[in-house]
């Protein structure tokens, strides 16, 4: 028996039952397509979360004043003045810290001629750019000299620049006002868009922290310190070292709580990843079940088909088909259904993924392993669920089969 002949026989048999064949395939198509789409959506959202987190700076460590009681009254974090410039300077000495910057900010109205826009000025050092993964698109970042001299210079985020200079003039070199303080624009930031929380990351103005502290807020403490570890794996060690340093500097007793809070992006990213992992597993389970149902559909149809075609099987046997020929025919039919269902399923899955991306704007990432896996599963399904009916067909007694009514 030639394979080509077997294929020919199986194709003819399927061709005679196009609708049924298609409906059986539909189970597999839906199964495969949903596995691919679900995993693509799951992976896509995971990717976008981690991309957004790394945009914010995945090594970032944030230190804020925290938990302090004054005479039994717990204080709001804004009022606390536990972090100082000296604290910031001490953190620069810690090994594993790549960059560190104090942070003070003040909201207010920026004015340029007859345009004005409310935004927040962040007082920082140039290292802040590395921590938050900002970069300067035009002009230059202010310098350490500007910090020492508390120079009235600033770098604008895109949103602020667009609003203050709607006519498209180059802001670099121009003087804007923040409240009553004139500031020279020395640079423009590269646009970063919105972050995962929906905040506009371009709605910022960066200035030397000394300028904000002395000239705007008139305070002698910092509101927060941003730092970054050399790489993500060292984040925990660096957090430990920072905690040690700050506790000793603040002369906290061993049993006292920290008077500051340290948070890292890592915690956030782990939490978000575990959520999206769970969703992916859930989606994959649902899709896997639909693939299984598709497989049972094949078995059901092949089983019915064997009974329905008993006479045909008897005839084939009487004209010389061996049991193995009949077995192969039915098995090949099952495999053709499942494999072509798989191919169509892959196409439908890819298209559906694209549609999800295009219509719902969900981030997607088609997983090659999902395509390979679902395709392999549906082929195995075809053989597995086709085997039993095929065995039944091959085991028929030709004498009874040919006279079957």
């Amino acid at each position, binding site marked *: *028996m030639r394979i080509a002949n077997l294929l020919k*026989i199986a194709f003819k048999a399927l061709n*005679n039952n196009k609708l049924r064949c298609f409906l059986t395939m539909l189970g597999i198509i839906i199964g495969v397509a949903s596995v691919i789409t679900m995993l693509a959506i799951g992976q896509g959202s995971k990717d976008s979360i981690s991309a957004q987190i790394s945009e914010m700076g995945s090594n970032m460590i944030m230190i804020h004043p925290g938990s302090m009681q004054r005479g039994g009254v717990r204080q709001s974090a804004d009022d606390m003045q536990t972090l100082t410039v000296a604290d910031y300077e001490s953190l620069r000495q810690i090994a594993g810290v790549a960059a560190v910057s104090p942070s003070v900010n003040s909201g207010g109205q920026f004015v340029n001629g007859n345009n004005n826009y409310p935004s927040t000025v962040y007082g920082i050092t140039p290292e802040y750019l590395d921590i938050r993964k900002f970069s300067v698109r035009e002009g230059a970042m202010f310098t350490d000299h500007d910090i020492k001299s508390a120079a009235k210079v600033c770098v604008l985020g895109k949103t602020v620049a667009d609003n203050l200079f709607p006519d498209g003039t180059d802001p670099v070199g121009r003087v804007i006002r923040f409240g009553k303080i004139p500031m020279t624009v020395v640079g423009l930031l590269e646009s970063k868009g919105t972050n995962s929380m929906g905040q506009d990351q371009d709605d910022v103005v960066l200035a030397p922290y000394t300028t904000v502290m002395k000239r705007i807020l008139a305070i002698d403490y910092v509101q927060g310190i941003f730092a970054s570890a050399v790489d993500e794996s060292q984040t925990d060690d660096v957090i430990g070292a920072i905690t040690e340093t700050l506790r000793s500097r603040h002369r906290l007793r061993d049993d006292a709580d920290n008077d500051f809070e340290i948070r890292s992006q890592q915690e956030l990213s782990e939490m978000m990843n575990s959520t999206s992992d769970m969703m992916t597993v859930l989606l994959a389970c649902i899709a896997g079940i639909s693939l299984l149902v598709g497989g049972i559909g094949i078995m059901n149809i092949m089983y019915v088909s064997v009974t329905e075609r008993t*006479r045909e099987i008897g005839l084939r046997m009487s*004209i*010389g088909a061996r049991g193995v020929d009949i077995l192969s025919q039915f098995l090949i039919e099952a495999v053709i259904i499942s494999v072509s269902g798989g191919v169509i399923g892959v196409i439908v899955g890819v298209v559906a993924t694209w549609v999800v991306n295009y219509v719902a704007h969900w981030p997607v990432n088609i997983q090659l392993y999902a395509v390979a896996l679902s395709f392999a599963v549906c082929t195995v399904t075809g053989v597995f669920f086709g085997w039993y009916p095929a065995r039944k067909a091959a085991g028929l007694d030709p004498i009874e089969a040919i006279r079957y009514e």
Partner: protein
Amino acid sequence: MCKEIIRITDLRREFMVGDEKVKALRGVSFTINEGEFVTIMGTSGSGKSTLLNILGCLDTPTSGDYYLDGENVRDMSKNRRALTRNRKIGFVFQNYNLLPKTTAVENVELPLLYNPSVDAVERRRRAMAALKAVGLESRVGHRSNQMSGGQQQRVAIARALVNDPVIILADEATGNLDTRTSFSILMLFQELHARGRTIIFVTHNPELSAYSSRNIVLRDGRMVSDTVNLSPASAKEIFMNLPDDND
């Protein structure tokens, strides 16, 4: 000159139906030579179906020997019998057993699909030749459901001829057809016989014995008569004298 195609000796076949032993064949012996047109007759329960199954290598006897074209079928494995059916036997059934929604030529090609030594070109050539032999060369592309009963039976006969078998086994081949069509099919069998085909025609209809060259009658699993018909009646004459369908 007379080559022996079939030789059966003391053929017995027993079935177990529940606890009861049913003896379908109780010792049948005969020899069929090349070029004979044999009708095997018997009422239902006479064992003619069982005999046909054994002759067609679908079943094996409980005891006794069956030589087909010099080979002992009793010793054959299941696959070997399938091969024998494919190469040496052509079946014609009462209900045609054509594949549905399949064209005449594809139906005729079917046995050759199970013969790896025949390629696609040869297969098509032989199928066309077989269809020509049964007078259906104009209907090769018709599907089985687009043909009359008589045409379907002709396709079935072409299918039986296509592998150039040593014997054609017909099981009530005219049983589902009206008188006129029956005679046309019978005529076809006589033509094939005239061209040297060996044919065994199993039927319960005693009238048909007049058209064969030899008639074997079975009753209760035994052969009760074996007569040679030296001057078979011509089905063609009867057919010509039948009134036309379109009256």
